[in-house]
């Protein structure tokens, strides 16, 4: 029990914040807790959730991926172009996801083999992808997809939207991989002491590439959801989403230094941020305040989690 509290104190704090936020908003707006609005929140969160799960892996490894927003746009464009060219929808999706993974793989390769800082690699990748999108599409959206394709973005399985199911599934798989598998263990270990992992005979480069590939794949899935939902591949789709994903990951308790993090925290943080966004809309407060609020929450959260660490290291 004591260990449970020690390991999960921060996550419990997040749960507390989540509950308090929900209580306040449900008092402020009677519409807030309606099933329709809850579903709406989860549906909005889905994209960020998928993106943040991938980001959690990368940050746990002590790296960063700024290209995920651009991968959303790029993979969406690939899927859109293929669909419009008459490629069967599911094949187009598969190819789009493969391209997204390949971009992640390239990021990982450049970081691990060419030893370029991941901030630089993924910043450059972001710029390149955005440039290519604009060149290929002439900055015009591609639209008009099959029903099968749009089903993945706006369809429903029973009462819930497909993206909700998809994102929760990915979060569950991500949690299992990070906390229960050798891959997750190495991801965290490389984040905390890469040299030690190397000396212990672990192929650090291989695992770095795998983690960046996973992150790319997650961004591709987010790209699928965005494109299918809008029934349109927008050149600027996903712009700035990398910041939301990083914010959710850090707020979720993943350490920027690497070596520490958990998917559940990321999921809760994602919900908190999206609930706030939704609540401010319901209360007709300008969405600009939401950005101010997100920034402020992030600083407070990191301060709390870091001060826990300071306390422990002083003992």
């Amino acid at each position, binding site marked *: 029990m004591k260990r449970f509290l020690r390991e999960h104190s921060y996550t419990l704090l997040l749960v507390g914040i989540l509950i308090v936020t929900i209580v306040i908003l449900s008092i402020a707006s009677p519409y807030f807790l309606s099933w329709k609005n809850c579903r709406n929140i989860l549906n909005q969160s889905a994209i960020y959730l998928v993106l943040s799960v991938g980001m959690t892996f990368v940050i746990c490894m002590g790296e960063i991926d700024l290209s995920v927003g651009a991968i959303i746009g790029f993979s969406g464009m690939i899927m859109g172009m293929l669909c419009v060219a008459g490629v069967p929808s599911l094949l187009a999706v598969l190819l789009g996801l493969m391209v997204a993974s390949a971009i992640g793989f390239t990021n990982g390769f450049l970081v691990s083999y060419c030893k370029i800082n991941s901030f630089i690699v993924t910043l450059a990748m972001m710029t390149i992808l955005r440039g290519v999108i604009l060149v290929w599409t002439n900055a015009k959206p591609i639209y008009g997809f099959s029903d099968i394709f749009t089903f993945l973005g706006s369809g429903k399985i029973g009462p819930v939207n497909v993206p909700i199911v998809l994102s929760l599934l990915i979060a569950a798989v991500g949690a299992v991989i990070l906390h229960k598998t050798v891959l997750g*263990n190495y991801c*965290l270990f490389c*984040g*905390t002491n890469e040299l030690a992992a190397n000396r212990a005979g672990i192929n650090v480069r291989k695992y770095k590439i795998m983690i960046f590939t996973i992150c790319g794949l997650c961004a591709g899935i987010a790209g699928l959801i965005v494109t299918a939902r809008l029934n349109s591949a927008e050149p600027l789709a996903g712009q700035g989403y990398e910041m939301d994903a990083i914010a959710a990951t850090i707020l979720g308790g993943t350490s920027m230094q690497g070596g520490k993090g958990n998917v559940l925290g990321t999921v809760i943080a994602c919900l908190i941020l999206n609930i706030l966004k939704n609540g401010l809309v319901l209360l007709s407060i300008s969405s600009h305040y939401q950005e101010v609020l997100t920034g402020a929450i992030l600083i407070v959260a990191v301060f709390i989690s870091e001060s826990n660490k300071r306390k422990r290291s002083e003992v």
Partner: protein
Amino acid sequence: MQEAYIRAENLYKDFGHVQALRGASVFAYEGEVLAIVGDNGAGKSTLIKIISGVLTPDRGEIHIGNEVFSSLSTRKAIEAGVSTVYQDLALGNTMDVTSNLFLGNELSRFGFLRKKEMKAEAEKLLESLDIRIPDVTQPVGNLSGGQRQGVAVARLVNQGGKVFIFDEPTAAMGINETNAVLTLIRRLADEGYVVIVISHNMPQVFNISDRICVMRHGQVIKELRTEDTSMDEVVSMITGAAGI
């Protein structure tokens, strides 16, 4: 007498114009603690770096068990069971004791960690080495220096390590920590492992070692059984006052 498990013979190593080793030879046996002593710059670290594959000698041979090497890499050395215990370089502070212990040798099925079995094995291993860590699920960063040293050693034992080298293991440690590390070192030798310790601390050397190897100017000038010598004698050899 049994044959030496490690025989490093006639090693030479230059760094530019500095001759760090000039025909140094050293033997280490299973079940004993060998202390290497010598003044600063005598070549102690260089010698053990060669034995553990971090440096390659300009000349000389290293016998480990039945194998002969003219040069080693760290990987080859680890495969031969030789490793230097560097607690801070070896451990992941945010990871728990079990993950650190099994790093690179995880028990898994289809890529899934068998955490329960690893935890049980870790507890068993630590107990067999008399390393006291009450909770193996806590991060290694929360442990004391002595416990961390213990985790680093336990991993090497688990990897099939045979020879453990400690370079100034208790430098910057408090009394309790130091005692824990010395107990561990003694314990390893009693379990039949080969243990080599570099130390400047004479009482410590006399407390834990079975044999002492004195280095001076890149050579091993004397090997002694600890019980046959005294601190004064060893110190006079280190400083050169003994005239060897």
